């Protein structure tokens, strides 16, 4: 028996106000797992790429994975996918919170919404039936209000709501979808797709027991994961300070972008905006997604002052950086207010902050002036202007209408492409490839554009996740050698987590190794995956998504990372930041049996698969370590040789990546590679 899934998805056509149930064969689940993998398969089978992002034909796919909603730790998540209005290519966005388990218990693995309604509507899905209801009274309400009103309206406080705010209604290109006030499907403008369809919200309430294939193995997996997370130092850090715990160390190693990626190091930033500073001032309590023992979310309150905000979700790392350091803004209160506004209006904090930072630099460099902005002067560290621009963007008022188009849209209109920091139209998240070179490949080769969640490179370069279990050794954080192989291994893990679906924080806190994932997946699904088979599933999904990207028009030229974030910084302490980062593998567990078991497994796996067979290469690699003379040298007058030496060797890394992945000169996966993974129909369409 297949566990973890129901074998059916709900299809809703908003144009005809009809719905039907589609049965999915078990083989499809086995081959594409669930989550964004299954969503990509559905999208491909129904030729989703043929529809414009903002057209009735673009399907909005809300998809659970086999782990979603079970009692395992970190399985609160689902994926929301469609062709992105921001990038024009495949868009996917992962959401935590509490919606996934409710949807799972209705008896559907996912919902596909096509068509568009004339009037605002919301969808009510329960295990008793499906209704399309009028939402005219909700149109214009923010996401916090909408969620409360809908729970009252359906008369069940345990019902869960995903909804859009004014930004989605106004089709801001990076509008998001919200649940539980602080949980978002943030990226790629999925909220704009909902807004186009005039779908204000989806409400789910289910009571069915989720089928589990092997109850005793599932119970054992749950206990083992709970034990690992209980002793994990990384989980402890998340629990104590949230994801924003990264700010201080991130700044020390040059990973946190400052002033639209111009400045290298801003010592005061973490002191004002970091997770520790928040814990010592405005933090009220922790908050967690469904079934999560980590509870990394922060509930904060700013009691008084110009940026007062009621008790509610506070900034996570990406918001603290995008709406803080990226603007070089040092007000913690304003940062949290900006985050709250983005949540309420329903806008992605990364894209919103990046677009405002781009506009500020464009204003400073004279590409934009007060005639464009309606008299507003844009400068760094202007909290009031930041809040004003967020409001204007959500409602597309005045200059906000330009900001609503995102960095790529603005740079095409006003110029400034050299400091437009995006890949494929998706604004880069707040991790600097100059600190962690793996992030350059991550951004370039992530299917949806610049994304830090598509793989585990961030955590691998930080020394938290090893790929010894996949036969791949670690490479130095700021060296090209080995990065392509690391990225492929890392993508496999990222895809598994986005298809299973499980929170990347929970998995990373547990070491990010495949044995734990296999234990969880096999106990729930009963598929009996082996390591190799699961890797094949991950590859199948990656190639399918890459092909969808190609069919949407993406080529090799789109796999480019802006030079600004590959070359040394223009301002600040430009040298020696990389010397804060050393390839030290950090144990996630503090002590005892658990630690040594994990260490033993990791070391023996790495030795047998990576080190011994490549001993000669390893020795050669050791000779390439940074020479002693580099220590402490500064970039004086941007000496060209020094700049070249310190520039991310992107071309070398990506050529090796293409070779490993079998990508042709047009950026397409080769026919042979596709066919070897059982994707013949994809090869036929892609290669003609």
């Amino acid at each position, binding site marked *: 028996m297949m566990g973890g899934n129901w074998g059916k998805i709900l299809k809703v056509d908003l144009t005809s106000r009809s719905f039907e149930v589609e049965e999915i064969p078990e083989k499809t689940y086995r081959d594409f797992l669930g989550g964004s993998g299954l969503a990509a398969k559905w999208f491909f089978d129904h030729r989703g790429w043929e529809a414009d992002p903002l057209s009735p034909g673009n399907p909005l796919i809300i998809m659970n994975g086999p782990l979603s909603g079970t009692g395992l730790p970190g399985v609160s998540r689902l994926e929301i996918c469609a062709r992105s209005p921001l990038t024009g290519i495949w868009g996917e966005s992962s959401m935590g919170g509490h919606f996934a388990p409710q949807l799972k218990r209705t008896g559907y693995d996912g919902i596909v919404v096509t068509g568009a309604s004339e009037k605002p509507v919301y969808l009510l899905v329960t295990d008793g039936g499906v209704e399309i209801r009028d939402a005219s009274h909700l149109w214009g309400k923010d996401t916090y209000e909408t969620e409360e009103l809908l729970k009252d309206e359906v008369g069940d406080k345990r019902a869960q709501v995903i909804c859009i705010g004014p930004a989605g209604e106004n089709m801001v290109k990076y509008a998001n979808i919200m649940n539980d006030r602080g949980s978002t499907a943030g990226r790629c403008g999925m909220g704009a797709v909902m807004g186009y369809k005039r779908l204000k919200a989806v409400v789910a309430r289910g009571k069915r027991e989720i089928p589990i294939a092997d109850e005793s193995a599932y119970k054992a997996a749950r206990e083992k994961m709970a034990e690992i997370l209980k002793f994990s*130092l990384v989980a402890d850090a998340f629990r104590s300070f949230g994801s924003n715990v990264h700010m201080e160390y991130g700044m*020390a190693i040059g990973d946190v972008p400052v002033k639209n990626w111009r400045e290298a190091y801003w010592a005061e930033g973490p002191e004002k905006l970091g997770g520790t500073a928040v814990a010592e001032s405005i933090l009220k309590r922790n908050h967690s997604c469904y079934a999560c023992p980590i509870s990394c979310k922060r509930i904060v309150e700013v009691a008084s002052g110009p940026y007062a905000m009621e008790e509610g979700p506070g900034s996570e*790392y990406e918001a603290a950086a995008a709406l803080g350091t990226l603007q070089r803004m040092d007000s913690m209160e304003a940062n949290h207010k900006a985050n709250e506004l983005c949540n309420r209006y329903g806008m992605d904090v990364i894209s919103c902050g990046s677009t405002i930072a781009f506009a500020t630099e464009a204003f400073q460099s004279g590409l934009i002036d007060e005639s464009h902005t309606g008299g507003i002067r844009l400068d760094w560290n202007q909290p009031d202007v930041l809040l004003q621009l967020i409001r204007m963007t959500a409602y597309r008022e005045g200059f906000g209408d330009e900001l609503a188009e995102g960095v790529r849209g603005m740079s095409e209109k006003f110029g400034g492409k050299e400091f437009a920091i995006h890949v494929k139209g998706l604004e880069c998240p707040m991790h600097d490839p100059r600190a962690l070179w793996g992030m350059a490949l991550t951004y370039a080769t992530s299917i949806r554009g610049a994304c*830090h969640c598509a793989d585990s490179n961030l955590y691998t370069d*930080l020394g938290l996740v090893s790929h010894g279990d996949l036969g791949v050794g670690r490479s130095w954080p700021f060296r090209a050698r080995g990065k392509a192989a690391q990225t492929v291994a890392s993508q496999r893990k990222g895809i598994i987590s986005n298809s299973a679906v499980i929170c990347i924080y929970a998995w990373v806190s547990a070491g990010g190794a495949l044995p734990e994932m296999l234990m969880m997946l096999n106990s729930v699904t009963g598929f009996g995956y082996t390591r190799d088979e699961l890797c094949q599933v991950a590859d199948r999904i990656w190639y399918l998504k890459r092909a969808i990207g190609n069919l949407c028009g993406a080529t090799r030229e789109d796999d480019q990372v802006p030079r600004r974030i590959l070359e040394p910084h223009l301002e600040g302490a430009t040298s020696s930041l990389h010397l804060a980062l*050393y*390839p030290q593998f950090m144990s996630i567990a503090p*002590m005892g049996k658990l630690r040594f078991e994990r260490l033993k497994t990791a070391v023996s796996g790495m030795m047998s698969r990576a080190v011994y067979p490549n001993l000669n290469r390893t020795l050669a690699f050791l000779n390439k370590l940074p020479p002693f003379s580099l220590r402490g040298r500064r970039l004086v007058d941007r000496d060209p040789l020094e700049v070249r030496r310190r520039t991310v060797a992107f071309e070398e890394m990506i050529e090796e990546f293409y070779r490993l992945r079998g990508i042709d000169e047009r950026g397409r996966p080769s026919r042979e590679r596709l066919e070897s993974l059982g994707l013949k129909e994809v090869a036929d369409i892609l290669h003609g």
Partner: protein
Amino acid sequence: MPTVKMFATLRKATGEKSYVSSARSVAEVLREVEEKHGERVSPYLRNCIVLVNGRHIGYLRGKRTRLRPDDEVSLFPPLAGG
């Protein structure tokens, strides 16, 4: 005298943000912190990242790195973010 700064969960476990140390090497700093705060900080110290003046001790002499009076030692426990 070198200044020792502690971050994240290490700061939480010790209750100290920074202090002026009399240690002459990184190893002595780690021993000093452990002696001062007891076993509850040991797991963090065993796995922590140590920077001296912003540089990882892996590029210096590891725990044997000698400290000068104006040095700044930063101790980070294992952490991730995103």
